[in-house]
């Protein structure tokens, strides 16, 4: 795929990334803000996600009743996501309609009203969203494990936030968070699709160029100190099914060790796709599937890395067979990790991991929305070069690199283990 792009910074600090793709009459337009749950402290956990919701509640120019119909009327689809490190808004539209998306995003970068009644109504919506998540054992287990992994760093809490904060955050807290982080100098605008870059850049300058750049937002401090001993938790809840999550602290997305770890993860749990659109492939030949599922210890196993700004976690999730115990599964997992630490994996296994990554890239490149996603996403934790050099860097990983990554990161003292113990179908957790 052709990766040539336009990458410029406007005088107000807004970074603009454009990639022309003329295969379909479609443009996908994204605005990324460098703010997420990483930027939150106790008392305002979940505020970034709530601000994202409020961005759909209107401005004087696009009141909420107009806003929620404007894009759909033009046949576009749009959504927003809040993550650990970032918040993003996108519209994918028929090419000739894209101006609406540009005007809308320029407007709500600056002019959202945050009406008090809308804040009140959204509070119960978000609490409902959280309660829906709490119905899922794996959400509850993941939330506990994250809290256990990060004693100091803000990755401690779930993106949706703690109920206590969702009940007490006020309109002005939300508005101040919005004004502090939703500024051109803290944003990346990325667009891919059927446009001419010169004309597109000119229009972006017209619409976004006059928005004041804004003060640089505060940088979160409080790095997580190294962990020096396994941490384990158990959680009880309804059902008949036992779930286990095992996590290890791993480096940030921009760290050179991220690539050996990506290969390591692929060997252990199967290839992960970082595509937001494009899908993945099965993992039935991965080492852990063979050991645990073919070995009749587990129903399923999957895992993956997250490309984050600060060091985060490699996590493995296992659904147990009803006739097995967590200890049996963990013992087998230890054997498989030890195998990777003791000897470098065969070259063929690495080659396969790289071919799988190449295929996942090809599937992802079918979607213009996904290509636009990558422009901005890669800038959030590294740079677009990270994306364009990804396959080459994976290809350069040696068996010894993978062994070393297993020796350095998959250590018990760097590990978190969470076990969801089911209490049956009639009892409370």
């Amino acid at each position, binding site marked *: 795929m052709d990766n040539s792009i336009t990458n410029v910074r406007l005088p107000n600090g807004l970074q603009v990334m454009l990639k022309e793709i*003329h*295969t*379909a*009459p*479609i443009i996908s337009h994204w605005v990324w803000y460098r703010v997420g749950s990483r930027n939150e402290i106790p008392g305002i956990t979940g505020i970034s996600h709530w601000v994202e919701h409020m961005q759909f509640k209107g401005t004087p120019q696009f009141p909420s009743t107009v806003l*929620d*119909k404007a894009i*759909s009327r*033009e*046949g*576009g*689809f749009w959504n927003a996501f809040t993550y650990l490190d970032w918040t993003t808004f996108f519209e*994918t539209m*028929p090419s000739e309609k894209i101006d609406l998306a540009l005007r809308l995003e320029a407007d709500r970068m600056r002019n959202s009203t945050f009406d008090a009644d809308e804040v*009140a*109504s*959204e*509070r*119960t*919506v978000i*609490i*409902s969203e959280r*309660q*829906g998540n*709490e*119905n899922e054992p794996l959400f509850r287990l993941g939330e506990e494990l994250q809290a256990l992994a990060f004693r100091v760093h803000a990755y401690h809490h779930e993106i949706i936030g703690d109920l206590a904060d969702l009940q007490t955050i006020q309109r002005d807290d939300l508005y101040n968070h919005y004004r502090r982080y939703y500024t051109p100098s803290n944003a990346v605008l990325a667009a891919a699709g059927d446009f001419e870059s010169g004309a597109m850049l000119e229009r972006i300058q017209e619409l976004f160029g006059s928005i004041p750049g804004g003060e640089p937002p505060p940088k979160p401090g409080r790095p997580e100190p190294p962990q020096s001993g396994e941490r384990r938790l158990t959680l009880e*809840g*309804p*059902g*008949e*099914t036992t779930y286990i999550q095992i996590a290890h602290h791993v480096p940030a997305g921009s760290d050179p060790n991220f690539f050996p770890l990506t290969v390591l993860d692929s060997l252990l749990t*199967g*290839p992960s796709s970082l595509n937001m659109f*494009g*899908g993945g*492939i*099965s993992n*039935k*030949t991965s080492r852990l599937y*063979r050991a645990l599922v073919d070995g*009749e210890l587990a*129903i*399923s196993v999957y895992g993956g890395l997250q490309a984050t700004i600060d060091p985060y976690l490699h996590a493995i999730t296992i*659904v147990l067979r*009803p*006739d097995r115990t967590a200890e049996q599964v963990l013992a087998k997992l230890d054997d498989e990790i030890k195998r990777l630490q003791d000897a470098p994996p065969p070259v063929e296994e690495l080659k*396969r991991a790289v*071919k799988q*990554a*190449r*295929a*996942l890239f*090809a*599937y992802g490149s*079918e979607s*213009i*929305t996904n290509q636009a996603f990558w422009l901005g996403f890669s800038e959030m934790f590294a740079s677009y070069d990270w994306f364009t050099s990804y396959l080459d860097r994976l290809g350069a990983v040696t068996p010894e690199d993978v062994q070393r990554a297993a020796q350095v990161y998959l250590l018990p003292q760097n590990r978190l283990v969470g076990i969801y113990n089911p209490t049956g*179908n009639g*009892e*409370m957790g």
Partner: protein
Amino acid sequence: MMPQFFTDQSLFSKHNARYPNPHSLPGPEDITRVELPNGIVVMARPNFNSPSVALSGYLTVGGISDPDSMLGLAGFTASSLMRGNARRDFQGIYDALESAGASLGVDSGTHTTSFGGKALVEDLGLLLELLHESLRIPTFPEDQVERLRTQLLTGLAIRAQDTGEMASLTFDQIVYAGHPYSRPEDGYPETVQAITRQDLMDFHRRYYGPRGMLVVVVGAVDPAQAIDQVAAVLGDWSNPDQLFQSELPSLAPLPETRRQSITIPGKFQADIVLGVAGPPRRSPDYIPASLGNSILGQFGMMGRIGDVVRERSGLAYYASSSLGGGLGPGPWSISAGVAPANVEKAVELIRQEIARFINEPVEAEELADSQANFIGRLPLSLESNHGVAGALVNLERYDLGLDYYRRYAESTRAITVEDVLAAARNYLHPDRLGIAVAGPPWVES
């Protein structure tokens, strides 16, 4: 030897007019459709923008043929197909597939068993080879069948804890009482336990065959070459004893509202599913109902229902409506997830919206908005090979005609507010709803 159903190979040269303009919707001159002598229909459309290929299609066998005592049989059979065949064992199948970064899956639905996969274009042959082996020469290895059974049973245990799934399952039991659609396709623990390896083999022998089968290939490959590759692996398949599903019995609409609640202790939120049996995809009511459904619970932030339940009342994170369509009378339903204390309030708000929806025509502007949305989003749904393959499957499954997507804008714009009202009144009534709720116990204070 080249099969004779290719009339003119020169049509398929790479720089020929038959190649689609990338900006055009699929239509008769860029979709190739052939019927193999054994009844398999093959459709192909090229796309050289990415070095990948998508495979899709179905066989005419599904859960509708399950005996009551063995509910889940069609699904269990479909899931067994890639667990071992006469040429490769389970690990051999997935070693070939995953080494190529390819994927393939077979999954049973109500009326059909669908398959889908993708690969880099150099591996299309492998994908088709594995499809051939899975569909035609599966061996149902004993150990794999038992491992799969344990996985299916755990899936059912997880389903029993899922408020959304349990509400949906209960909804089907209410609305489709006495009809095959009342039955969950993945069965119940006791019916999955009852299925033997012999049952799987018998089901496969009776129902799997080329008649009624569709194979779609979309991606960086010449249509002629794609069809040739399909014919090479499936062209000689025959099953003279292949059984077809019996006709669906008729379904009477509910004479009154019927409601059932499922209590799942330890949960935090309740899921509501309410609605009726809707029009089949082929019904003349389907398109007007589909536009109406958009207005009712899809458009913008989930239509009128999203507006009253989420935006104005703040009751739910999600509240929307959906229209199933399909070969039979699929559901026309509204779903919402709410705090247990708000179930009654949400049900009443939704009921009021249904009443308004059948008592007065939608606004002309609302209809125009949804029409514009349907027409505008069509090219977006055709962005990927997978999206185009799905669109081609629909053309064949519902016999829509190869020019359907070219006519789509015109036929969508032709629908009037009166058409929407008439279609809505044929199905929806606020006092004749199936209502299912699944969630934690709730005691009114």
